[in-house]
């Protein structure tokens, strides 16, 4: 059997989540046919979908949030009524109060809580409550009961996180899951935006990202921009056409947040040839793209709807082309054209190569990917295949750092710890600066080696590795683990360092921190 250890390291670490432990034989399989090992996952039908019993659709989840918030509101009203001391009056919540129709903005305010910017407080609470056990604590220790029962939002976030983590830990190579993470970060939302975003973070990825990871970019773009989570994250549900019926009645108008990020971050990229006028025009075009609220006047609560009342009437000019379509078709036509724009092909090709290969990716590789993207009309399976088939992706030195997510998942795979509780992973991600589905801005988490190789980040990785090793090392011989991770591709210094360690614990911590395990 041909054996190429260096290529196996690249196959597993650059393209996947690292070798699994136990008797997986991942390294040997990867060494015998590195490209085939990576590409095998692309051939599985529906391999990117995540269908796990108990995970609900976005409208179902939306309804739960609406109901939960409504209950809280009712309880508050009741408390207020009781406080007013009218003991002879029946409590206010004895029957649901008929309420006047809510405006979109009022609904949005309710959904987001009083103040979206202050929501992280609640979000922190949610994250903290996830940590029923300490960071990366072994699952043999029963998790301590959380101080307070989790609410529906926290429960849902944990369940979605767990499903994603489990998929990553058991995947053969993990290339498809790496693609999911890449696209999910490209089209990121942040769970910290508010209750709905936290509730929908997982369903957004399952519904808008995964079905298209091996499909077409244009389809993913449309699914993303019409997903309630994205509309909520970038405020589009509040944006009204100034001359729309709702805009005139309420004397409110445009919010160009989503339109700008579509052009700047999702498709054309900065310098991609659009102007402020294009941003504003696109903002007008997508007015009315919203989701139905609790009362469901526009459709099933929590589902995407086009609200004609909020849509700016008339043709709009975007990137020099006039779009005269009526209704939702206008925006869909613009997105369809932007998805095919040469700037988009270049922007995506560069970002894709940067993520997998190098901070400054080889220009020949970028050109090849750009050409594939253009030629196949944005076929993302073809894009991924072209990356793996290229020579550049196998020749570039391993200069990238694993992101915290990749590092924690790779550790879990090697140590054969399929999580039953997401808490330790979520805690580790918080500590290392990559809280799950919660980047600081709509540009997502950084994707350069320097961003993840900062002094403090490395020190924290060492502390986490040492802690993990202190709990688990007795079950393993670190020298065997080094064979599973890198075999002949391990540097002599790394091998020596591990062999000479004073304890199994120390050896395992050093292995997890070795360049072979940290670089990709």
């Amino acid at each position: 059997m041909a054996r190429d250890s260096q290529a196996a390291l690249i196959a597993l670490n650059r393209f996947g989540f690292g070798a699994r432990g136990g008797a997986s034989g991942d390294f040997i399989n990867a060494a015998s046919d590195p490209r085939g090992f990576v590409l095998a996952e692309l051939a599985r039908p529906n391999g990117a979908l995540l269908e796990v019993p108990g995970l609900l659709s976005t409208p179902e989840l939306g309804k739960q949030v609406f109901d939960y918030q409504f209950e809280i509101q009712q309880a508050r009203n009741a408390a207020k009524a009781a406080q007013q001391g009218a003991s002879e009056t029946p409590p206010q919540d004895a029957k649901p109060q008929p309420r006047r129709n809510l405006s979109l903005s009022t609904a949005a305010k309710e959904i987001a809580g009083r103040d979206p910017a202050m929501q992280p407080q609640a979000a922190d609470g949610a994250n903290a409550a996830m940590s029923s056990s300490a960071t990366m604590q072994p699952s043999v220790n029963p998790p301590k009961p959380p101080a307070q029962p989790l609410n529906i939002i926290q429960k849902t976030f944990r369940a979605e996180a767990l499903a994603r983590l489990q998929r990553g830990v058991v995947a053969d190579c993990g290339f498809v899951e790496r693609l999911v993470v890449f696209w999910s970060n490209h089209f990121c939302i942040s769970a910290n935006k508010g209750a709905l975003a936290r509730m929908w973070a997982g369903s957004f990825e399952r519904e808008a990202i995964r079905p298209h990871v091996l499909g077409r970019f244009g389809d993913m773009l449309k699914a993303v921009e019409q997903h309630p989570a994205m509309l909520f994250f970038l405020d589009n549900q509040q944006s009204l056409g100034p001359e729309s019926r709702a805009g005139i009645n309420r004397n409110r108008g445009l919010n160009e947040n989503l339109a700008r990020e579509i052009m700047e971050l999702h498709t054309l990229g900065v310098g991609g040839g659009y102007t402020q006028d294009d941003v504003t025009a696109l903002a007008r075009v997508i007015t009315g793209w919203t989701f139905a609220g609790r009362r469901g006047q526009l459709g099933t609560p929590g589902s995407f709807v086009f609200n004609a009342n909020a849509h700016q009437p008339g043709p709009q000019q975007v990137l020099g082309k006039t779009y005269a379509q009526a209704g939702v078709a206008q925006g869909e036509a613009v997105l369809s054209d932007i998805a095919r724009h040469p700037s988009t092909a270049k922007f995506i090709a560069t970002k894709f190569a940067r993520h997998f290969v190098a901070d400054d990716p080889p220009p020949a590789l970028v050109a090849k990917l750009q050409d594939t993207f253009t030629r196949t009309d944005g076929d993302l399976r073809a894009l991924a295949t072209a990356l793996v088939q290229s020579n550049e992706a196998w020749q570039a030195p391993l200069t990238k750092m694993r992101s915290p997510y990749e590092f924690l998942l790779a550790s879990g795979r090697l140590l054969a710890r399929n999580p039953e509780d997401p808490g330790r992973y979520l805690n580790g991600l918080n500590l290392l600066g990559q809280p799950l589905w919660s980047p600081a801005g709509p540009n997502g988490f950084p994707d350069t080696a320097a961003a993840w190789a900062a002094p403090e980040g490395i020190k924290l990785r060492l502390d986490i590795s040492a802690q993990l090793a202190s709990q688990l090392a007795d079950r393993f011989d670190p020298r065997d683990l080094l064979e599973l991770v890198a075999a002949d591709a391990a540097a002599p210094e790394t091998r020596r360092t591990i062999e000479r360690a004073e304890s199994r614990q120390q050896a395992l911590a050093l292995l997890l921190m070795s360049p072979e395990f940290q670089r990709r």
Partner: protein
Amino acid sequence: MDCSESLTMQATSRRALLLGGASFAAWAYLPKFARAADGRDPRFVTIILRGALDGLATVAPIGDPDYAGLHGAIALRSDGPNAAVMLDPFFGLHPAMPEFARMYRAKQAAVVHAVATSYRDRSHFDGQDVLESGFPGPGRVQSGWLNRALEALPKGERVTSALAVGPTTPLVLRGAAPTVGWAPTALPQAADDTAMRLLDLYQHRDPTLASALTQGLQLEKQAQGDEMKPKPGGGGVAAMRLVARGAAKLMAADDGPRIGALAFDGWDTHANEGGPVGRLAQLLGGLDGALAEFQSGLGARWRDTVIVVATEFGRTARINGTEGTDHGTGTIALLAGGAVNGGRMITDWPGLKVANLYQARDLAPTTDLRAVIKGVLHDQFGLGERVLAETVFPDSAPAKPMKGLVV
């Protein structure tokens, strides 16, 4: 894990909170000044507000006849409940900033209005690159202006304590001059021996990681004993205060850092920005608290301190359709500190008539932010005009250092 659950949870929520809103990093060396004569020991802090601060909502041109119409429901007023604090007959300060108002009255704070970097588009990320890199255009993200200023300073002793929050150094302080950082954590530490062995491996195999680990280890040691007690909850506002308190404590020490940077996120107020109360008001309250923490924490050193607060660009003069503001151009910069020649509004006010707005939409910038920062760096550290125009802010010669910002 040995530590109690509550400790872990606190640490986790605190870290999440800090990452969500605030970070601090500092130069690893003391500047060496031949200033024994007057005993001056200058401090400099820059606070980067990421997301684009609405300058017209923070220091409102209430005397401008067009202001109230443009800022609509969220405009500040000079009378009534939650009235702005009038800094002069024309400009009113947001009521959420009483500490800054007090500093202003004590002539230890100043406002520069209608200011902008050289960047004229409206991408946050490019705008932040320009603000922090100090280059005239985006795309230069290898080093920041503050780091290049450090390289031009005579280097003294290495600092023995430093603090940084967030696993990455902000661009403004990134570059060749060594910086330090630290973050509190309740994780048990890896044993020293393990760390030394790893360092040895990195030195043979991966010099970049060796350097990162070396710094990470030093910082952790220095931070120990520092009582940065985790505090659950509080959100980004509390984080601003907390990180400023820690930074001030370290910078007050004789062997502590003299020059540092903080970055506060969350200023992108597209919707429901709020007027005298609301979302922006809460954030401004956090910033105000952070400035107060610096004053109290620096103690006697406040006298020699200049803090510059800057943001990547401003926001639209007219509120948008969702009672917020979209990405704009001109905004404010704030100066605070005992060394600031304060009590002044520094502005060449362009007016808010549509014809005077930049692209009929934004407050037109009339002051180059680089001139402000160059003026401070010149007065505070004696950096020469040429270094400032060529190295610190490349190609910025026309933006001459503003004079008289420091007493």
